[in-house]
Every structure is written in structure tokens, then in C-alpha cells.
């Protein structure tokens, strides 16, 4: 019966391997580049949408099938608690920061690991933001802790079954992929800005080398 739930220490040990795979795939997807990530919001390159929804659909269908055949104990799976107020407001703030800074926390780690100085600075910003949020806790804590934190699902909200929603999400993702391909084809060549000439360092650039522009 899944999940296996190994002991805490083994779980932490394998967490390093899981993180390795996560970081590796993010880099191979091109998420170590702020230009590529930000291009999503200017409809120049919809890789973010494609990768993200393919991943969600893959994992969701996997979980749905394994749950249906009784292989997964659904109650033993952690589900992010729902606090709609903080999550909607937090999401809007997060999105604004994403388009200004060009990364999200996970991708900035991968970008920093491949030498992007802007990602290291972004990481410092994230930490400053976390610190600022903590300092403001006496004022924002009430709202941040609101919402009940229930284990609540999209299918409950829609009053549909788990399987039906899984199929709907898959169809929605396929529709979005078709739309994304259409938009990319439409805008190809035209308005996408050329890469900044000085943006790439030589391939031999190394730990000791200075940033190209500093």
C-alpha cells in the first residue's frame, strides 16, 4: 500500500535524491533561465504552461489510477490545506513578484546552481521578503491564518466525482496545449526580442570568473 512512508531519517536521505531529480528536470526544461520563464507572461514562449500542466496531469492521473485500483491510501497522502483568502491574495502578490523578478523560489535555486547571478540576488530578495512578512506577522498573522485549513478538493467544490474532474482537468490541459501551440506559431519570429548580446558568458566560465556584466 502506497505511500511507503519510510522512517524520518530514511525519508530525509531519499529527499536528497528526489530533490536531485527535481532540480535536474527543472534545468532540462529550461527553468534555469529567467528570460524563458518571463516569456510566458508575454506569450512569446509558453514552455512554463506546457511543462507545468503536463506534470500536473501526469501526477494527477497516476494518483487517480493508483487510487482507483486501491494501491494508494488517499487519506495518508498529504494534501495542501485550503485557505482561499490567503491563497488567492498570496497568489496575486506572488504572480506580481514572479513577473518582476523572473523566477519563483524553486526555479531560482536551479538558476543559481547554474551560475545565474540574478537568481542569487532573487534568492536574497525571497529571504528578505520572508523576513519582512515575519516582521509584519502581528498585523498580517490573523489574515494569513484564516481560512480554516480544510482538506478540500476541486471535485468537492464542483460537486463532481474525482474521476470526472481528473478527466476534465486533462481535457482542459490538452485544450491549453493546443492554444499554446497556436499562439506560439502566430507570434513566432515576429516580436520576440533577440537575446542580449552580452548576456551569455563563455562556456569555459568558471567559479572564479567574474560575471559578464557587473
Amino acid at each position, binding site marked *: 500500500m502506497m*505511500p511507503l512512508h519510510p522512517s524520518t531519517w530514511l525519508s530525509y536521505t531519499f529527499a536528497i535524491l528526489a530533490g536531485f531529480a527535481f532540480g535536474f528536470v527543472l534545468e532540462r526544461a529550461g527553468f534555469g533561465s529567467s528570460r524563458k520563464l518571463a516569456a510566458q507572461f508575454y506569450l512569446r514562449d509558453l514552455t512554463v504552461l506546457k*511543462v507545468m500542466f503536463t506534470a500536473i496531469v501526469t501526477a494527477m492521473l497516476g494518483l487517480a489510477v493508483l487510487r482507483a485500483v486501491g494501491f494508494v491510501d488517499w487519506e495518508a*497522502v498529504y494534501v*495542501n490545506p485550503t*485557505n482561499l483568502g490567503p*491563497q488567492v491574495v498570496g497568489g496575486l502578490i*506572488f504572480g506580481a513578484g514572479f513577473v518582476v523578478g523572473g523566477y519563483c523560489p524553486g526555479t531560482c535555486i*536551479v538558476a543559481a546552481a547554474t551560475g545565474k547571478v540574478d537568481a542569487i540576488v532573487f534568492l536574497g530578495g525571497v*529571504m528578505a521578503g520572508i523576513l519582512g512578512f515575519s516582521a509584519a506577522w502581528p498585523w498580517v498573522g490573523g489574515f494569513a491564518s484564516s481560512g480554516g485549513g480544510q482538506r478540500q478538493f476541486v471535485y468537492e467544490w464542483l460537486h463532481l466525482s474525482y474521476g470526472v474532474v481528473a478527466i476534465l482537468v486533462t481535457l482542459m490541459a490538452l485544450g491549453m496545449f493546443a492554444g499554446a501551440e497556436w499562439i506560439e506559431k502566430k507570434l513566432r519570429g515576429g516580436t520576440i526580442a533577440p537575446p542580449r548580446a552580452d548576456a551569455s558568458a563563455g562556456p569555459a566560465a568558471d567559479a572564479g570568473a567574474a560575471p559578464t556584466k557587473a
Partner: protein
Amino acid sequence: MSQETVTAEAPRERPLWDPYVAGFFLGLVLLGTYLVFGRGLGASGALARITARLVDVVAPAWVEGNGHLGGYFAKGAKWWDDWLVFELIGVVLGGVFAGLTAGRFGWKVEGGPRVSSRTRLIAAFGGGAIVGVGARLAQGCTSGQALSGGATLALGSWAFMFSVFGGAYALAWFVRRLWT
């Protein structure tokens, strides 16, 4: 000794994976963590703990009494005692490994074609700070909420995901100078 293999210049940059292939493998990694650990991936939670630990060096009384971060230092608690902290170490290793083996590694500032490095770095710091606030408020980021929660069809995670895209697209036009 064959010197050509050693002195051979850096390998050509390898192409990125096709987005759907990358997404499929990302989904498999995520499915794997759900099946083995009963939980998804994440990033911002570990960053909060690391931030708390760093602040603890300079202002221990403040951080340990803080309503948001103080719990990491409660009696019997350890700041590093979280799956995500160890996962994050792996993400760094995986990023380094992938970058070096793809020939995509080099110290540089990357940004839009019309902004100086200085502007880019200021925007990166500011954007990072805003992201930090949003991630703490929503108790997760694109990895921990949108991706992981999205796969379990958690209602709040989907609300977060659409809010992120909403917030980003709403502001994109106003900050277009940064990227286009």
C-alpha cells in the same frame, strides 16, 4: 595520455528537453514523491527555515519570539528538521549536475535586452521580496502549492495557481520594459 579529451573545449550546449517530455518526467518525479513519501515537492518552506536560521545568528531573541518563524526554534524542534530542507540540497546538486552536463553553466546576469544588469538585479531583488511575501502568505510557491497541490486537486492550490497567473499577466504589461 590522451590530451585531446582533456584540453577539448567545453562541450556544446545541449538542447533543452521538449516541454511535454520535461513535464512528463517532472510529473513522474512528483508522482514518485507522493508514492514514497506521501507528499509533494516544494521550495519556499525550506527557504523560510534557512532564513530563520540565518537571522538566528544576528537576532536570536527576535526570531525565536517571532510569531511566524519562532516555531522552528521551539523546545524539541530543530530548524533543519523538515523534508524540504533536505530536498533543497538535492535540488542544488541536481541543478549543478544538469547545468554542467548540458554545457549551460556560467556566471552571468540574465535579463531582458533593454535593461542594464544593475536594473535587472534591482528588479530581481524586489521581485524576489514580493515573491517571498506571497509565498509565505499562501503557505507555498509554484512548486509546493501549484504543482504539488494541483496534482492532488486541492482546491486552494488551484486557486493559488490561477491567482499567480492572474497577478503576473495583470502586471506584465506595466513591467514589459524589463523583458521585451
